[in-house]
């Protein structure tokens, strides 16, 4: 057996991993088609939160998923028995499966992995429990409450909805980078052969606990989320889910699946410095880990889907880290949270889907609500209007409370029919220079 390279993993024939199905739920729409249209149009899904009683908060604005009919979308999971985040995860998984052109039976035939990232799990259920315990006391605690409020309910909900058994299942609760953690976990499982397919991503539902916390800390923007803007004043909490179906390249090609993108690699690290504030050097280190793991050079990256929360510290720190790695002219760097809010554990999963759509459809989603780029965030944020572009490699950032960073690299797969460019470095480089700052719609 050959030695394991400390960065690139096993040297012996790891499989290539591709993305063949996406399921998306967000404030700008349900389903990958609606999500694509919204990103292209730069649509903003802000509205008043009604998912819980937001009366009395300084601002009620946020990004709620509207028009979600759980009963119509779920076949086995019963909405009245599960929390909202679990319903989101299960519905998005079903969408990803259908988008990939796979059936439940095909999943059952081969061992798989289901990993869902989340910040809050089913904290919304605990909110409701708290409210009823204040009036009912101990009688509020019913026999199903333990299961309903368990964080693991999210990934388990997918397994129950699709009636699976031979699957390794986990819910990853690494806060706002959790979606990328889940994608990385599924990538490693498929790449190593531990699983033949992976349903991975993230889900979170709006809840009082987290909204109150962010509001108390003064981190909620009064009107809109404006990543990288001089006048940015915070984030807007959101909800939703993004689930991705990953499989080996061999499996996708054998069944003639349409490949969105190849997962090229990822990086994980921890600032180990501060409970809530990010650290520039550590974020830069995570970018380098991801690039090395993906065998991608900085000059080969066409687009960065930033964490971009719209808080003063995050955006300045994140852009400084990007400059550390990319020098004075980093790739276009966009903040999709301007359109869909901060969907917490779903954020980097929806960011990864946005990245894949950019590769597949040849456009860069904009940073919406933008007025003036902060000199401390000196990058092309693609303000307000999407741009047609040849996007081959995208870096998708996820940075969490606690200093938990996770960064995923996606690249165009040669089967995608955009001129036959693969993820080889040389072909990426060739197509880069004609894509910057042009074709603004």
């Amino acid at each position, binding site marked *: 057996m050959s030695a394991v390279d400390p960065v690139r993993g096993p040297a012996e024939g790891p499989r290539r991993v591709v993305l063949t199905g996406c399921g998306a739920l967000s404030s700008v729409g349900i389903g990958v088609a609606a999500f694509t249209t919204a990103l292209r149009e730069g649509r903003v899904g802000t509205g008043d939160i009604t998912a819980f009683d937001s009366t009395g908060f300084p601002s009620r604005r946020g990004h709620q998923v509207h028009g979600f009919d759980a009963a119509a979308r779920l076949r086995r999971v019963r909405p009245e028995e599960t929390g909202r985040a679990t319903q989101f995860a299960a519905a998005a998984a079903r969408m990803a499966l259908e988008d990939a052109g796979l059936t439940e039976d095909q999943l059952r035939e081969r061992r798989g992995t289901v990993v869902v990232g989340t910040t809050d799990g089913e904290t919304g259920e605990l909110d409701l429990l708290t409210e009823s315990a204040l009036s009912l006391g101990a009688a509020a605690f019913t026999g199903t409450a333990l299961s309903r409020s368990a964080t693991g309910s999210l990934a388990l909900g997918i397994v129950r909805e699709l009636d699976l058994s031979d699957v390794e299942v986990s819910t990853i609760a690494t806060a706002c980078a959790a979606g990328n953690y889940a994608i990385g976990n599924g990538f490693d499982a498929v790449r190593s052969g531990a699983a033949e397919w992976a349903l991975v991503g993230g889900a979170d539902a709006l809840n009082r*606990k987290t909204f109150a916390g962010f509001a108390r800390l003064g981190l909620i923007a009064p009107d809109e989320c404006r990543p990288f803007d001089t006048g940015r004043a915070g984030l807007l909490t959101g909800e939703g889910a993004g689930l991705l179906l990953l499989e080996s390249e061999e499996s996708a090609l054998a069944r003639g699946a349409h490949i969105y993108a190849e997962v090229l690699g990822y990086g994980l690290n921890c600032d180990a410095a501060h409970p809530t504030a990010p650290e520039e050097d550590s974020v830069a280190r995570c970018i380098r880990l991801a690039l090395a793991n993906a065998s991608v050079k900085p000059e080969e990256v066409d687009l960065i889907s930033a964490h971009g929360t719209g808080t003063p510290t995050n955006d300045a720190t994140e852009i400084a880290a990007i400059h550390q790695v990319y020098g004075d002219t980093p790739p276009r760097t966009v903040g999709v949270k301007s359109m869909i809010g901060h969907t917490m554990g779903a954020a980097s999963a929806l960011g990864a889907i946005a990245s894949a759509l950019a590769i597949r459809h040849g456009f860069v989603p904009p940073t919406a609500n933008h007025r003036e780029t902060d000199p401390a965030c000196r990058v092309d944020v693609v303000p307000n209007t999407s741009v047609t572009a040849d996007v081959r490699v995208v870096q998708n950032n996820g940075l969490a409370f606690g200093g938990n960073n996770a960064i995923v690299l996606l690249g165009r797969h040669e089967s995608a029919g955009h001129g036959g460019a693969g993820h080889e470095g040389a072909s990426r480089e060739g197509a880069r220079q004609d894509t910057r700052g042009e074709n603004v719609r």
Partner: protein
Amino acid sequence: MSNAVITAWSAVSPYGTGSAPLADGLRTRTAAPRSEAPEEWTARPDATARLVPGFDVREALGRAGTRGMDRLTGLTAVTVRELLAARGAEQDDSLGTGVVLGTAAGSVQGFMEFTRASLEGARPIDVPPSKAPNMAMNRAASASAIRHALKGPNSTVAAGRLSGLVALDHARRLLADGRATRVLAGSAEEYSASRAHLTHAAHGDDVVLGEGCVMVLLEPADRADGRPLAELLAVHHRVAPTGDFTAALTAAVETALTAAGVRADEVWAALPGNAPGAAGEQEVRLHEALFGAEVRERVATTALLGETAAATGAFQLAALLSEPGEPGRIALVTTTDPDGYVGCAVLRLLTDGTPPAAGNAPTAGGAPAAGDVPTTGNVSAAPTTAEEIDAR
């Protein structure tokens, strides 16, 4: 790819702080003491539980950086401190030391108290800002990393009572894929009145809750710095169809034994996870079908600790590592969760079971002195006011 090996472990348990009290309690088959439940909010006045004796977060960790810290985080951070003290400080390298912690739902009590403050305050934003970092469920794992400057992958996984084995599996994979040099893996559970109510409502008033945390240090066998206490041969987990645990658990055990290259009759000790209800009953029947009484009774049951929920799998590892015997013994643990998770791990025990209170140089016992603790991390950085906090 080489297997992962456990080269150190520590714990905070109802027997006390450190691996030695837990190992002693398990080796002598002494049930952990019960004491009065500490919280008032909606607690039954007569409630007792197997609590970590006298545990107070700020007394255990000092006042720096611990204001508002929840109990789950405190239990985890102390366990990590004890493990690193036993292991000794070391230079972190480019990939660094990772942490993978299993949890069921974070600090349920902490979350509910935060929400209660919002519901009962004059304004809905009247929640305590010092507790805001606890809002994120990765608080325990990340706070432990901050206190000891552990800059490798830092992950929190949730899979009910299987969380400990799933954490072990994630950690093993991080090593196999070259994403960390070494990983601290384990799981934790706090006692709280809220958790007691949830557990009693689900599984009956007779269930006595336990709490604590066990962390093991996992390294690649071919590059381990420490002397191996056990080799992790296989971990396999899956999900049982509702109510029917036997078939899925049988498949998990068979798959794990095959992956480990071990026959069922080579297993020296088999340890079930004592889940409440049908999950645990079917698990025990399966053990009876597969293993003789001698094999099933060789290692102390973690039932001595009470119902430890997410911490169960990690406590099972501690029970294996604590049991005296010749190096080379094969041990198998299974864990189930009433919600459907089932899993199995197979290990080759390389220790003779001496409590590893001093890490790789086993001594007669006694927890390491707190003064030896490496405090390379930033322990004074916890924000205390809203103004000091900015977010991602």
